[in-house]
């Protein structure tokens, strides 16, 4: 076995330095609920593990003037316990909280869920629908990217060598906004999404949808932002006809795989149904805000 090194930087700057010196041979460790499984299965490449959990910025949730900053390594249990975020972005929180068991919740993070690059990652559609951005640190300094631009395909991200996600930014939404994430799995707990759907929307004073974003997981090589499904409800009162159009647009955007969890036809159909249900919940939440 090769000699695997470990390091535990205390600041973003120190982490950047260590990752740069490792010349692309280091793996970032957040909650480890994907990475350690890969390590144990002999599927992890690299000669160093860099634990980013001791960097304060990666572990904190901050209310800013125009939104929330959530550290990339904040665990599901920590995010779930944060009242203000639960109120502002219930769909984002429910995505992360659906991951695994209580034990997994003690560790699993938004950054790990996104950067692992699974098309079925449960917290990603919620972040995409929220219009969240991420702050990325690397050898060339800091940059900001949209969450939908990070995953390129199964296990592949647009992060360059030495880069890592520091935090996510969730913008403040206008009044009368709501979001929701739903996933379909064959059992009630501990399974991989057959389909995941998230909708975020805003209503004007007359109850007409003025803005919407729709995102789907597990129905293509990467999580999708489905602009056409959002357009189907913007300018409407999100009535039956608009929801039917949203549902059709969601199904039309699918390019799924066939596997034991669901056939292509099944996933395509369920994506439409789930998108519609998520939109209905988001609508109720928006009306209550």
């Amino acid at each position: 076995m090769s000699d695997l090194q470990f390091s535990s930087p205390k600041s973003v700057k120190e982490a950047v330095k260590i990752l740069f010196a490792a010349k692309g041979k280091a793996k970032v460790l957040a909650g480890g609920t994907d990475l350690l499984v890969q390590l144990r299965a002999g599927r992890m490449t690299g000669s160093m593990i860099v634990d980013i959990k001791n960097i304060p910025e990666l572990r904190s949730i901050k209310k800013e003037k125009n939104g929330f900053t959530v550290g990339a390594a904040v665990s599901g249990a920590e995010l779930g316990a944060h009242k203000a975020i639960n109120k502002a972005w219930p769909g984002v929180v429910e995505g992360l909280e659906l991951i695994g068991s209580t034990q997994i919740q003690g560790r699993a993070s938004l950054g790990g869920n996104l950067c692992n690059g699974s098309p079925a990652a449960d917290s990603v559609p919620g972040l995409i629908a929220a219009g969240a951005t991420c702050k990325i640190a690397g050898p060339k300094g800091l940059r900001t990217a949209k969450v939908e631009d990070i995953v390129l395909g199964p296990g592949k991200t647009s992060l360059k060598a030495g880069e890592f996600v520091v935090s996510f930014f969730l913008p403040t939404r206008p009044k009368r906004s709501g979001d929701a994430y739903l996933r379909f799995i064959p059992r009630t707990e501990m399974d991989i999404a057959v389909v995941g759907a998230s909708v975020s929307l805003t209503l004007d004073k007359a109850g007409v949808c003025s803005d919407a974003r729709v995102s789907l997981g597990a129905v293509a090589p990467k999580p999708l932002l489905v602009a056409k499904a959002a357009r189907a409800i913007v300018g409407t009162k999100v009535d039956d006809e608009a929801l039917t159009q949203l549902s059709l647009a969601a199904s039309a955007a699918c390019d799924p795989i066939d596997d034991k969890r669901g056939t292509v036809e099944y996933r395509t159909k369920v994506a439409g149904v789930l998108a519609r249900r998520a939109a209905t919940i988001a609508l109720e939440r928006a009306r209550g805000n």
Partner: protein
Amino acid sequence: MTKYHVKTMINGDPAEFLCGTEQTVLDCLRDELGLTGSKEGCSSGDCGACSITLDGRLVCACLVLGVETEGKDIETIEGVADGDDLHPIQKHFLQEAALQCGICTPGFIVAAKALLAENPSPTETETRYWLAGNLCRCTGYDKIVTAVMNAAAEMRGE
């Protein structure tokens, strides 16, 4: 191979061990410290037999590296009983016959203790969801859930 010297608190006492990067804290507890109460069922986060708490948070010891626990507080099944006095959860597991082979039991007890620390009056549904990451291939779960509910009642003084 590079070995790291790790200092932690385990069940309230200072503990030190040497470990390589790829060793999980489960490996360290069992192989370096002789604390074999935490079990290895799957090594992939699916069964919960390795449940411990890390700084008060319930986690799978098989998905935490030993080197990550530097300066952290670890609680294992070995710290649940007070000397010869069993914890109410342990007593009710015996009373209800909530175990057969016993491999899953330490994990269930540690997880149940964490549940009752956070929520002293869980409903049966809450208890079942909280314990969904703990698998038992012998008992069929009902007795486990009953034992936890009864222990919760006793701990509330009912």
